[in-house]
């Protein structure tokens, strides 16, 4: 009895520390459970909207020469359907359940950067609202969800529609990158004691690779969107073939993102399956290592497939062969996962519960999508069916099979975890059959529609081409499918509040997410368990009680701190204690100021956009300022056994340092895409060479690159001086790097300014301007970082022990210096040596 009273008291103390104020105070929530659920609810809202749009599409196509919807509205509707489903439903839904589940599966109390995920949520919500509002007002983007230029360019899409897509979606992608960095750092560092990398739930491996793919895959699209917006707003001709641009460059940048995107969506679906299959089969997963290898292989191969969306643009056939081979070979790692799941079912005693039914739906639908995927990877066959309804059918089999069916299974599996209540099971079975039959009715026959030659994205068609009956069948199926989804949502809503109470761990699962009371407390674990194997709740049956009784790590509340363990990446040995931030309005405010930037840019009020950017910078700095201990931390007790661990504040390998590393990885991919684009235009685009060349005094590039090198050397000197305790030298280094940064930024801006007559005349000039802009921005941010760190030094927030800030300045400057040298090479050497 004593231990139970103690557990209840511990619960009360932890709840107080980890809670969020009620009412309007909810806007300050940063807790991963809350933010994760917000992502899920918002993404379901967009799913419903996009689903209604798809019903309008099916209504229009139900009969030939139907005039229910005209071409203008139709084009907006299908563009919005694709955009909403991809960017505002699928990715945010994945982010949502990852934010919710990941810390629970890893045995930790929150994510590495709670405020960052809250900021990600606001960016998603505001960016998505901009897009949705435009669609509802009839000003939605109408160039299709992959926005091919020149259709989306200014001459063929005047007005605001394309800008809505480019700016709204870029805004949402900031969210995706934030969450990507969040997930990587969390998986690598924020696990519970003893959780070796090779004992981590497969979910962790899947999301680790997915998050890397987000970090690597989204920047090309962000870059493409920035370049296209620069073309639309200021006339810099990156994609205009008449002025040395190339519309195909957009396709490369888009699909460099777009193909990994498919696996960014499928891998999390597979992650859920790999988490649910062992408990449902009542057997540990078979082939753990092979699955991990398959996940990594999928991630790598997925970056070599993008051209398979471009077989018909006129790329030489042998060039296509490579992409064809890669596209087909991706079937192998997928096959490994399927056979591992089936093997696990073979080995165990499968329980035929409701999630299992949905997993069967997944098996059939996704296998079919994969099979047609192999077909369209075959170049000659794709030459025929590309851009027909065959591809529309294929894509829906992959995406609905790869994400929606696993998500439906997961919804039934984890609903008790979220609400503490269990669904009845009956409505869920009916919903399954409506969804499964409706889906196949809609999309199976659509393969035939495509084989009979119906192109995608046509708002109407003639009777008598053999398209009438298949389209009518698809439309009927679409409505059955919609009824199924409505039943599912109703089931969720009803049992959210009215279901019978669920026992703890209703599936007898092995993972730590079920080692807590349900619905889950805000702090997840009364104490963070030390685990001794890959299936914690099966290896240590008493774990739930021990956790609640505070027998493991960080069971006691002190100083009102929100604590969670950080571990050694590979071994899972406790490394330090992260002091998590509590509720704060900073993410919301930062989201609002970012929204001011995007909305003003959209409305072409550029001074206001500059104000928004400036305000955002101030909020980011305030955010960074709020961190940090004022005195050197001392190790504190971390477990009842008396282990001592330092707190993270200022540690060289604090989460913030890792966060910057992976942010720079994303940044580097954006930069690499820019360099790729510049070289691509130079070597392949029509209408080169340009009518003029860059003419500047060598002093300017010398100042630009030299300034960045000085910035780096100054920041590095400051870091070393800090470690040696030489405060004077530290201050000098930071001031030097500050001036280096501003000199370099000014020089970068001056290069296109004085060296080129007209930035809008040729893609060459536009490319130079973009490179210079990239250099100037990084030097400027570097200067601001140096000034910021110098200020913190002056306030006494930095010491030889609390060295994080000087290390961050040094890292940023190192990156900037390397980038500046590459920019110099790209500007002055590449155009001279490469052929046009």
């Amino acid at each position, binding site marked *: 009895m004593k231990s139970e009273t103690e557990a209840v008291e511990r619960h009360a103390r932890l709840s107080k520390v980890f809670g969020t104020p009620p009412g309007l105070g909810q806007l300050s929530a940063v807790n991963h459970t809350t933010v994760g659920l917000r992502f899920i609810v918002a993404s379901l809202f967009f799913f419903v909207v996009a689903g209604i749009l798809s019903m309008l599409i099916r209504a229009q196509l139900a009969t030939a020469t139907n005039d229910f919807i005209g*071409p203008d509205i139709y*084009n907006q509707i299908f563009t919005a359907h694709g955009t909403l489903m991809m960017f505002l439903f699928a990715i945010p839904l994945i982010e949502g359940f990852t934010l919710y589940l990941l810390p629970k599966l890893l045995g930790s109390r929150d994510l590495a950067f709670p405020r960052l995920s809250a900021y990600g949520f606001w960016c998603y919500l505001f960016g998505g609202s901009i897009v949705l509002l435009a669609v509802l007002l009839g000003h939605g983007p109408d160039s299709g969800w992959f926005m091919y230029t*020149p259709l989306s360019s200014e001459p063929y899409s005047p007005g605001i529609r394309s800008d809505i897509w480019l700016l709204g979606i870029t805004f949402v992608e900031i969210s995706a990158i934030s969450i990507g960095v969040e997930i990587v750092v969390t998986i690598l560092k924020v696990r519970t004691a003893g959780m070796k990398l090779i004992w981590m739930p497969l979910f962790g491996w899947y999301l680790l690779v997915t998050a890397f793919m987000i970090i690597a895959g989204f920047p090309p699209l962000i870059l493409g969107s920035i370049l296209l917006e620069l073309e639309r707003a200021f006339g810099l001709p990156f994609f205009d073939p*008449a002025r040395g641009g190339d519309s195909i460059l957009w396709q490369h940048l888009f699909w460099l993102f777009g193909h990994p995107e498919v696996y960014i969506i499928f891998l999390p679906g597979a992650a859920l399956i790999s988490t649910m299959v062992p408990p449902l089969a009542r057997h540990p997963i078979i082939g753990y290592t092979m699955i991990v290898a398959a996940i990594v292989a999928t991630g790598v191969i997925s970056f070599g497939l993008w051209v398979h969306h471009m077989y018909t643009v*006129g790329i030489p056939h042998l060039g296509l062969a490579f992409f064809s081979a890669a596209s087909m070979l991706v079937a192998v790692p997928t*096959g490994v996962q399927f056979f591992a799941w089936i093997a696990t079912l073979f*080995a165990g005693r499968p329980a035929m519960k409701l999630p*299992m039914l949905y997993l069967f739906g997944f*098996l059939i639908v996704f296998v079919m999508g994969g*099979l047609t995927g192999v077909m369209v990877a075959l170049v000659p066959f794709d030459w025929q069916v590309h851009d027909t309804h065959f591809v529309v059918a294929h894509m829906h089999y992959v995406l609905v099979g790869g994400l929606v069916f696993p998500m439906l299974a997961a919804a039934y599996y984890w609903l008790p975890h979220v609400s503490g209540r269990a669904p009845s099971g009956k409505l869920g079975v009916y919903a399954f059959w409506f969804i499964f039959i409706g889906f196949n009715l809609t999309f199976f026959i659509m393969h035939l529609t495509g084989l009979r030659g119906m192109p995608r994205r046509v708002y109407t068609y003639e009777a008598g081409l053999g398209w009438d009956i298949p389209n009518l069948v698809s439309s009927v199926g679409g409505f059955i499918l919609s009824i199924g989804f409505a039943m599912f949502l109703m089931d969720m809503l009803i049992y959210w509040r009215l279901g019978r109470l669920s026992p703890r761990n209703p599936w007898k699962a092995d993972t730590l997410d079920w080692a807590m009371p349900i619905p889950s407390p805000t702090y997840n674990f009364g104490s963070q368990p030390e685990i001794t194997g890959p299936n914690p709740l099966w290896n240590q049956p008493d774990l739930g009680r021990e956790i609640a009784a505070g027998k493991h790590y960080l069971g006691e509340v002190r100083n009102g701190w929100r604590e969670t363990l950080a571990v050694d990446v590979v071994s899972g040995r406790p490394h330090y204690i992260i002091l998590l931030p509590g509720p704060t309005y900073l993410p919301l405010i930062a989201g609002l100021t970012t929204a001011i930037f995007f909305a003003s840019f959209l409305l072409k009020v550029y001074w206001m956009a500059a104000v928004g950017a400036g305000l955002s910078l101030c909020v980011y700095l305030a955010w960074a300022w709020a961190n940090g201990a004022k005195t050197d931390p001392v190790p504190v007790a971390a477990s009842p056994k008396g282990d001592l661990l330092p707190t993270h504040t200022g540690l060289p390998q604090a989460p913030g340092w890792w966060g910057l590393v992976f942010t720079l990885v994303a940044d580097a991919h954006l930069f690499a895409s820019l360099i790729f684009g510049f070289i691509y235009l130079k070597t392949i685009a029509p209408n080169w060479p340009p009518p003029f060349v860059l003419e500047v005094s060598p002093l300017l590039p010398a100042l630009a690159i030299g300034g960045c090198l000085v910035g780096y050397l100054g920041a590095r000197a400051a870091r070393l001086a800090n470690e040696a305790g030489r405060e004077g030298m530290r201050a000098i280094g930071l001031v030097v790097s500050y001036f280096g940064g501003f000199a370099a930024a000014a020089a970068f801006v001056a290069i296109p300014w004085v060296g080129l007559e007209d930035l809008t005349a040729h893609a060459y000039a536009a490319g130079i301007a973009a490179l210079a802009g990239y250099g100037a921005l990084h030097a400027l941010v570097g200067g601001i970082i140096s000034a910021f760190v110098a200020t913190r030094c002056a306030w006494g927030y930095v010491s030889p022990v609390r060295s994080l800030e000087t290390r961050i300045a040094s890292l940023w400057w190192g990156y900037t210096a390397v980038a500046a040298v590459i920019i110099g090479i790209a500007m002055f050497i590449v155009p001279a040596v490469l052929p046009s």
Partner: protein
Amino acid sequence: MSILEPASRGAGAVADIWWVMFWGALVVLAIMIVLGLYAASSRPWHAGKGLTAFILVGGIAWPTLTVLALLVYGLWLGEALLPRGDSREPYRIEVVGHQWWWEIRYPQEGGATLIDANEIHVPAGRPVDVHVTSADVIHSFWIPRMGPKIDAVPGYTNVVRIEADEPGTYRGQCSEFCGLQHAGMVLRLVAHEGDGHLDHLERLGGGSAEGADAGAGAGAAAFAENCSACHSLDATQPAADPGPSLAGLSQRAFLGAGAIANGPEGLRTWLSSHQSLKPGNLMPTFHHLEPETIEAIAAFLEERGR
């Protein structure tokens, strides 16, 4: 429009490979469903032995061998479809995609070019190299029964080879989304027996003898005032701001790139209400014209567009 009713050797080869893949895919799907159901039916596998081999064989060996075989087949087929390596001299035409119609150009000996719209006349039983580009956004040239599609990309010229086995008429349609009237970009390919395509070219070029000058009469004046800025009646001369050439108009089966059947009635309906037949097309409405003026233009086009 169906690729399952091929009318050329290339399209036939792709249709064959489709049926191979279709039956193959059905077999794979059946195996996966049976495996899944069997695995879930509570039949304990003895001590989990051999399951690693099961994954290696099913997950790695099986898909690897299958896709490799398919890959080799596909590469070989793709090479065979390319516009090269045929002893016969290919017939050459040029196609330019416009929002939302097709410009067809027949290069003639001596450097002249005859310009037509939305209909292609070629010899049957002879390879035809279609040189495809675009005047504005990206379109895609595709006649399903003839085989592969190719994109019309501004700034580039792509070549696709087609060959009609038999004389006949084959429908095509733009297959890359190109804006409001993407659905309204239909194309007809007429494959003629023997030298029948030359008769078409002769009739097309014949109109040029009368010159670009519209001539006298009320219809001619109305045409000159309302139409000639965008439309030429001379197959050798494009108009200054080019809409589809109207040379040889009466020979076409359709108006407005597939919007309505050509004929006395169709022509008049098109002139008076083309914006409701093909909403968003770039031709201005003629609501401000008297019915007599429209009639005069129609009569003039019937006369001159022979």
